[in-house]
């Protein structure tokens, strides 16, 4: 069997396993919208932990992360550890646990629904959903671009970019439409475990070949280009940049629809407690091997052409073909486990927070389930078509998605914890920070950096300020339910 056939066999085999899991989950799926979106809020510790993990970590962890470590040094591990391992974990409690309780009590399925109820405003509900979809769509497209590019590179062009991205899209539609959240969560569990195991095997394999970590690090220290990698900080990794990145992405992740929606899905309080305690360890277990491989690659004699991904090339050089293909399958896994969840959440935001309140208020539960499945197919297909043309604007939006979502985080936090917040306050706060951040991307007159701090972080501060000030000078609308997030919560 030649190399390309072998690689394709592994990847297609992997896709079929994911599809099979989806079909098993399909047999358990009820025909309600809540079951489709949230698996009826029944996820256990292992599944919740791994589905959140696999959803959070996209093709980015596999490709862009090692690329950054290769070019700039391993400090990226610290940035990722802070944003995902600590900041996100704390938000998982502060935002996530409160959302979970509210979801249990009032049956919320989306963030917009939860806010719309509190502030008595379907416009706010639609605004949150609309903003989320603006950032989500290009991000899904980027994942497809990543998958198509990776498959094309792996097979030396035997599988074209269009075919690769199309193949992945069809598989995702099939199992997401069939099995909803339960299928997605189960395949995520497989994908997350797979990522973790293959990354460690890859690390050990490469280290065994080059003579252990000390030898690999010594080659870094001996080259003038990379000697600076070992000392903490550089002109790239400044404290401002590290903190801006960690804070905006950490907060942004919590507002990403597919992650935020998982806040509602835990089966019990005990599941949340166990997940929180295991979370930082899980993060560090993936980040250290994955990004150290990237950093060590800079000292090894592996030719990396400009713009190519480091990880596949270093594996090509040090491990057999079948193993390199496994890792690419792992990267596909990472990409798919993020995209499938995004499709599901994007579709739920659309049907629940835009279609139902604004187009058909009398939508029945079973009709909503049907509509949501159609939404998944349309969303995925549209993102695939966009990935064929790759418009520059969408690229920019996709790359900025984390900071875009981060703009929602502080107004939402205030809504959850501050009783004096008003509908006018949160609405203007969200609009102001989104407007500012969009302007920093597309309007040349608005800079992207302020004394080393990113526009994303400055926008978050602006949103906080506007929300507080406007809330203080306005009085709540008559149909706001100001006590709903506070009274009787968790007192069972």
């Amino acid at each position, binding site marked *: 069997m030649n190399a390309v056939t072998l690689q394709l066999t592994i990847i297609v085999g992997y896709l079929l396993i994911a599809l099979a899991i989806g079909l098993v989950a399909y047999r358990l799926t009820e025909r309600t919208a809540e079951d489709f979106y949230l698996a009826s809020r029944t996820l256990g510790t292992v599944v919740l932990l791994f589905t959140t993990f696999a959803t959070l970590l996209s093709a980015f962890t596999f490709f862009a992360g090692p690329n950054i470590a290769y070019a700039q040094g391993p400090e990226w591990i610290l940035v990722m550890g802070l944003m995902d391992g600590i900041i996100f974990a704390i938000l998982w409690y502060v935002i996530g646990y409160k959302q979970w309780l509210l979801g249990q009590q009032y049956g919320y399925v989306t963030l917009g629904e939860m806010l719309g109820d509190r502030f008595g405003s379907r416009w706010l509900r639609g605004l949150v959903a609309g903003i989320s979809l603006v950032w989500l769509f290009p991000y899904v497209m980027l994942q497809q671009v990543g998958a198509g590019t990776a498959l094309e590179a792996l097979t030396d062009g035997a599988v074209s970019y269009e075919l690769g991205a199309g193949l992945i899209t069809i598989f995702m539609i099939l199992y997401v439409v069939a099995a909803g959240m339960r299928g997605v969560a189960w395949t995520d569990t497989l994908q997350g475990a797979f990522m973790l195991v293959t990354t460690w095997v890859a690390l050990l394999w490469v280290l065994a070949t080059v003579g252990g970590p000390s030898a690999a690090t010594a080659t870094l220290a001996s080259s003038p280009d990379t000697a600076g990698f070992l000392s903490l900080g550089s002109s790239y990794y400044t404290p401002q940049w590290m903190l801006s990145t960690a804070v905006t992405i950490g907060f942004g992740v919590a507002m990403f629809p597919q992650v935020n929606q998982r806040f509602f899905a835990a089966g019990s309080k005990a599941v949340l*407690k166990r997940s929180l305690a295991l979370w930082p360890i899980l993060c560090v277990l993936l980040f250290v091997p994955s990004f150290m491989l990237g950093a060590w690659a800079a000292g090894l004699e592996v030719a990396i052409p400009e713009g190519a991904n480091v990880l596949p090339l270093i594996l090509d050089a040090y491990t057999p073909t079948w193993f390199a293909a496994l890792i690419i399958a792992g990267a596909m896994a990472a990409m798919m486990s993020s995209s499938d969840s995004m499709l599901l959440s994007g579709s739920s935001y659309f049907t629940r927070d835009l279609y139902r309140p604004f187009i058909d208020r009398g939508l029945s539960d079973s009709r909503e389930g049907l509509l949501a499945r159609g939404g998944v197919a349309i969303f995925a297909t549209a993102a695939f078509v966009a990935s064929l043309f790759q418009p520059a604007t969408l690229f920019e939006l996709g790359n900025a998605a984390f900071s875009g979502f981060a703009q929602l985080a502080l107004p939402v936090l205030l809504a959850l914890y501050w009783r004096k917040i008003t509908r006018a306050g949160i609405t203007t706060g969200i609009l102001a920070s989104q407007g500012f951040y969009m302007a920093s991307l597309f309007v040349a007159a608005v800079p992207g950096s302020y004394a080393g701090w990113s526009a994303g972080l400055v926008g978050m501060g602006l949103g906080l300020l506007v929300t507080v000030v406007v809330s203080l000078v306005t009085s709540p609308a008559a*149909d706001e339910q100001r006590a709903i997030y506070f009274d*009787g919560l968790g007192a069972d």
Partner: protein
Amino acid sequence: MHRNELGFWIAVAVVLAGLTVPWFLWGSATVVAGLPVWLWWHVGWMGLASVVFWVFAQRAWGIGIESTGDDGSSDGRVGGPGRTRETHSGGDSS
């Protein structure tokens, strides 16, 4: 009592986040067992974070979020009496 405990856990969260990156090792290039010493700190710190989260989950879970019978004093400081729960609508009604 309740307030002090909340303050304590907020401080713990700030310290956990604040020292995930060992700022005091800025510029250090010391290598121990093949990895920079600042990376070892980070690995150990994440392990510590797991332990801290576990202790938090056992001892103080629900703090700042769940309303209990006795902390009505701190909750009652804003909003005032007479708040009533209305029907759940997800904003559909407006």
